[in-house]
């Protein structure tokens, strides 16, 4: 089950409840371990939900679980790295199911860096210059190039993964166009000094980035965003691709 170099299956599954997505991922990981399927990326969107990673600190919840439930937001504790995060419609969530061992990449941190690189590639195309912040996994807006200002770091994508027998699960959540107020319920990723942002917010007319090469002048549709993100991730995660450059 090896795909051609530089290619990988990307499946858009639409809106999937978090619990169902966990099950889908478990199945996908089992299939990958058994060799029934090749490497692939599952793309989904979740109804509003808060998830707690293994390193979650209860102090990073600003409201109680009961209050969240009353607001129609579910809470799950899951086996992935990272702290607490929030998913909602308008956020593109990706689950790369890769066999790192078969790829000759037994390096979980390099996997994080590759996901970051793919998202940064996609954001460049979308006209949102982005960068990494040393010591903080995830993707942040490149303030120097964004054209609108200093201030606290603005985080646009969160990353947290799990591995079972070198097969990866969980992945990233890219804020495309969602109500950022939802993040107020938590301290995202346990980072108190970080502001959450989205592609839509960064592209808002009054905050338009200075002309970024081939950036999309038109507002991209969610389908186009998925296409761009999917392709960019494949470009960094598929067999034969490199992290550098």
């Amino acid at each position: 089950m090896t795909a051609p170099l530089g290619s990988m299956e990307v499946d858009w599954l639409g809106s999937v409840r978090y619990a169902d997505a966990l099950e889908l991922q478990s199945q996908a990981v089992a299939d990958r371990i058994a060799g029934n399927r090749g490497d692939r990326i599952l793309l989904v969107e979740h109804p509003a939900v808060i998830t707690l990673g293994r390193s979650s600190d209860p102090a990073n919840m600003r409201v109680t679980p009961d209050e969240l439930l009353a607001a129609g937001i579910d809470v799950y504790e899951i086996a992935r790295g990272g702290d607490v995060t929030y998913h909602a419609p308008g956020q593109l969530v990706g689950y790369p199911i890769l066999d790192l061992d078969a790829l000759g990449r037994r390096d979980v941190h390099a996997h994080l860096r590759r996901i970051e690189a793919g998202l940064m590639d996609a954001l460049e195309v979308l006209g949102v210059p982005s960068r990494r912040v040393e010591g903080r996994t995830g993707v942040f807006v490149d303030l120097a190039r964004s054209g609108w200002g200093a201030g606290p770091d603005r985080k646009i994508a969160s990353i947290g993964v799990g591995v079972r027998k070198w097969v990866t699960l969980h992945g990233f959540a890219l804020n495309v166009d969602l109500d950022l107020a939802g993040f107020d319920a938590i301290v995202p990723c346990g980072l108190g000094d970080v502001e959450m942002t989205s592609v839509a917010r960064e592209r808002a007319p009054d905050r338009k980035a200075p002309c970024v090469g081939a950036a999309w002048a038109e507002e991209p549709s969610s389908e186009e965003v998925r296409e761009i993100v999917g392709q960019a991730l494949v470009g960094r995660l598929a067999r034969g691709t490199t992290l550098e450059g």
Partner: protein
Amino acid sequence: MSIAVELPSLGESVFEGTVSRWLVGEGEWVEVDQPIVEVTTDKVDAEIPAPSAGVIESIHAAEGDVVEVGAVLARIDPDGKPAANASSEPARVPAPPTAPEAAAPPVGPASAHSLDGPAATPVARRVAENAAIDLREVQGTGSAGRVTKDDVLRHQSGAAEMRAPIPVQPVQAAPTTPVAAAPRKPARPAPTFGYELQPGDRVIPMTPMRRIISDHMVYSKRTSPHVGTVAEVDLSQIVRLRNKHKRAFQDSYGIGLTFLPFIVHAVVRALREFPALNASVTNDAIIEKQDIHIGVATETEKGLVVPVVRNADRLSLAGTAMAIDDLATRARTKKLSADDLKGGTFTISNPGRQGNLYGFAIINQPQVGILRMGEIAKRAVVRSLDDEDAIVIRTMMYMALSYDHRAVDGAPANGFLFRIRELLEAGEFDL
């Protein structure tokens, strides 16, 4: 003898991890490969599987402990008997390790999202619901017999009996263990491609590098219709040049002067005149590239690599020679970086072995052409001297061009090859 479970290396930059959760307790029986502990490092949560079946004899790191790579997390006694009070969660045990046990229960009363029900994937459930199919009638072939979408569709098309259920192997564990009856994930089938192993055969697992080469070759052959064409080139002028400058070159640059930089130089000049060969094919377009980066196929201990001479058209002959020498040296000493291997626009292969008359190389995707050098040898050829045909001895080489017929037709391909020959035979190179 107990077996140590160590924290495995999780990557180059990973030196330690935090024990986030024990999935088993002391005295509990575990199967080989069953995840026994979760370890977190940065944003990664890794499940550490049991290296052997047995009883967890002792646990050496508590939840929250930071442990170094190589540190012992637990010890497993393969011959041990589970403690009477162990296995406090018997419900977990019959499930195969890949079951959604990681889907920890939602916090608080949010269990409206029940994960139980018929053993089926959510997609399968939705498809079945839409098609009004009773899942209980569908033969599941997913992990642990779970019904998948394909199963539902197969059932719907009445072909449910076409596929036998995956056989469940009994566990070989000691019958005294509480999990003896647990079903086990079927082993990964070893593909044989129609070949039955014979006594004395040696099975050599592919290295990642071999696998990449293998994938790439298959991909290229499937993607590009290869056409081959061969030219014979007289290298006498190059031999003359080389003999004349060999020593001075060695003195000035510290490297020998081989034939390869001349070939690269001639190819680069010909590519300028035939941009169709310096191209890539996309879905519905051909991209002729401005830059010329020449890949030089190099054999190394670990296999074939193709380091790239960047902007080869901007280099002098000496510059080309030095770039090739540098790449070849680093290829042999494994010092090539990913950048050295990227972005080639045309490739030259120089197998350089005696007796290699000519042969056709496989195109290095996403390029559209590759030139393969044959053996350089003295041959008797016919030349006209003072209007008289004569048999003379010349240093000759066959060059074979493989090109992608999607992008390039015969006439330009042969024109390109002929031009390389012309340049080499004219021998006009600045040294």
